[in-house]
């Protein structure tokens, strides 16, 4: 009996020693982690504030030299690269674009590289190149389309590209690219176009970058360049994700249609019901319609018409249309198109 008691005591001691050792290791771990903490991440310490601007610049340059040596090679004829390429990650993007950083970060932003080129004999003429690596073509298209200037003109031969009087914006694979000129100058814009050509020729991308949903919108009466992609929070509703919108001109009215492809028809129905409830909660009221297919799905929202419906695994509808008749017409055309898409699959 006594030996059994000693064995039990020895076993208990071993367990105790193990537990104490584990507690000791945890304490050591906490101590190491605490001594290496960055309080500024929580906004309660000065670590980043006390990092000098020079140090920040040095950090950026180190990244540049190791990972991004190439942008300066895009310099157009008669221009020179100013300083080195600057590189920004999600945690530093605000240093470059401040309040616009969330737009990119919420859309999958991975890295921004920027470079300025100035005319050799006139430093007042310069451009800044912004290359946003958005991770994939859908993310790149989303930030491109949401910011698209209504006055922008198509810039061929690129499909997702437009120019304004001083700038050029386009999607190149997973990259969203901005070339912003310091003046409205033909000479400067020729140089901008040259940089764009060099990017297309030299910046390797995965060409399997088709965005299927773009084909799901009926082409007739579609306003060119009007398709936008909201990865989340479309029309102010958090639950409306991966949503494409497009504008249509019909009988002197402009109508915005939208669609979102879901995994299956049940998910589509759930999303449509949620959005419908969201609108009702925020003041929308059901409206009568002559079309049976969208009965109960048409709402009046402070004088505008909202329509939300599903076609198979698609949630679709019309947003803030001023004319109900035009809205219903577009809803009908979109329904037919989506039915034909589904029947061809």
């Amino acid at each position, binding site marked *: *009996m006594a030996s059994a008691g000693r064995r039990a005591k020895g076993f208990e001691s071993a367990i105790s020693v193990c537990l104490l050792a584990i507690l000791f290791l945890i304490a050591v771990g906490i101590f190491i982690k605490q001594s290496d*903490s960055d*309080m*500024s*991440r*929580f*906004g*309660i*310490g*000065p670590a*980043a*504030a*006390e990092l*000098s*601007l020079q140090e920040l*610049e040095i950090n950026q340059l180190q990244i540049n030299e190791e990972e991004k040596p190439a942008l300066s090679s895009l310099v157009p004829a008669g221009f020179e690269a100013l300083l080195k390429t600057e590189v920004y990650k999600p945690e530093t993007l*605000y*240093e*470059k*674009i*401040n*309040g*616009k*950083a*969330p*737009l990119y970060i919420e859309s999958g932003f991975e890295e921004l590289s920027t470079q300025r080129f100035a005319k050799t004999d006139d430093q007042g003429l*310069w451009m*800044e190149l912004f290359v946003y690596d958005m991770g994939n073509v859908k993310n790149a298209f989303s930030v491109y389309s949401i*910011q698209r*200037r*209504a*006055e*922008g003109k198509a810039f061929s031969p690129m499909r997702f590209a437009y120019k*304004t*009087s*001083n*700038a050029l*914006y386009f999607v190149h694979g997973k990259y969203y690219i*901005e070339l*912003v000129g*310091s*003046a*409205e100058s033909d000479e400067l814009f020729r140089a901008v176009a040259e940089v764009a050509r060099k990017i297309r020729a030299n910046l390797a991308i995965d060409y399997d970058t088709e965005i299927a949903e773009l084909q799901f919108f009926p082409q007739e009466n579609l306003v060119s360049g009007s398709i936008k992609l909201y990865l989340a929070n479309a029309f102010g509703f958090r639950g409306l994700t991966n949503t494409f919108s497009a504008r249509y001109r019909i009988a002197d009215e402009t109508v915005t249609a939208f669609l979102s492809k879901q995994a299956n028809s049940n998910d589509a129905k759930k999303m449509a019901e949620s959005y419908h409830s969201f609108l009702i909660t925020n003041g929308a009221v059901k409206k009568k319609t002559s079309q049976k297919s969208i009965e109960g799905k048409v709402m009046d929202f402070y004088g505008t018409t909202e329509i939300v419906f599903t076609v198979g695994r698609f949630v679709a509808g019309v947003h803030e249309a001023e004319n109900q008749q035009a809205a219903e017409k577009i809803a009908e055309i979109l329904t037919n198109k989506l039915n034909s898409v589904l029947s061809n699959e």
Partner: protein
Amino acid sequence: MNKQNEGKLDRRQFIQRAGKAGISLAAAGTVAYLLYDSKGPGSGIGAEELVTLPDFSIPYQAGQAMSIVKGSNRRETVTKAIELLGGIERFVKPGETVAIKPNVAFASPPMLGATANPELVSEVVRLCYKRGRAKKVYVTDNPINDPASCFMLSGIGKAASEAGAEVVIPRDSLFKHTTLAGGRLIKNWPIFYEPLKNIDKLIGIAPVKDHHRAGASMSMKNWYGLLGGRRNIFHQDINTIIAELAMMVRPTLVILDGTEVMMTNGPTGGSVSDLRRANTLIASCDMVAADSYGCGLLGLKPKDLPYLAKAEKGRAGTTDYHRLKPIFDTAG
């Protein structure tokens, strides 16, 4: 010990074990008590080292708190707007030192309207010297991204220097920590303090811009440039930080430039097509009132910008700018 008592504790053993456990608990508790930091993690800055921005405001004068001038020439509109409030002499006394805080947030050309207009900044500097007979005028801002480039490419550095102002570029030693009394976000936070420490008057100059996060960037948001550290964390609560900035900074005068308004893609813009000409310039002793009027140039109402109501609640000014009886006029 007989069979019945095997595996059971006798009273002596129980007391011994209970005593040991009690001593262990007391020791652990004592150590925890000694190591406990009731203040939580902080920056290591003691309360005695915290600074407070001086109050640069001037006494309220009924009917001369806000002016709105229409015109396309900024030099003329700003001169007129200040004149309507009693002239720069009301704001700047001979021999005083003035700091002008324009929005120099980005290294972008003046044409894009992402920063304060250099001509406007230069005219205000000129007024301070010529009519206000200021001893010294400083022009300063804290753009995080390469301040020298921002001052150079925005044209503000050159314009201010040519008008006789001294441009102050931020560096670490110019920041001190502050805490806003009653503030939720500005607690023990570094601000661009040194250039404002010994001045007499403070003037803010900001363009009217769309802002992706805040809805609009105007004279209140302009003070964001005084924050140091990783100020981007405040973007999560942008309305509160703008309101707190308005409570923290008591400027002498703000000038809100709506000559060309950035209607979309703010605050950076990038294309001339983001701008719309509104030919409006506002000068005001009440920045909440100035912004409440200015948001109309973006097609917004004061209620669309929650930070305005928050600032009003914090007694930084009024959203009901009509109460100030703004003076309307044209120039040029």
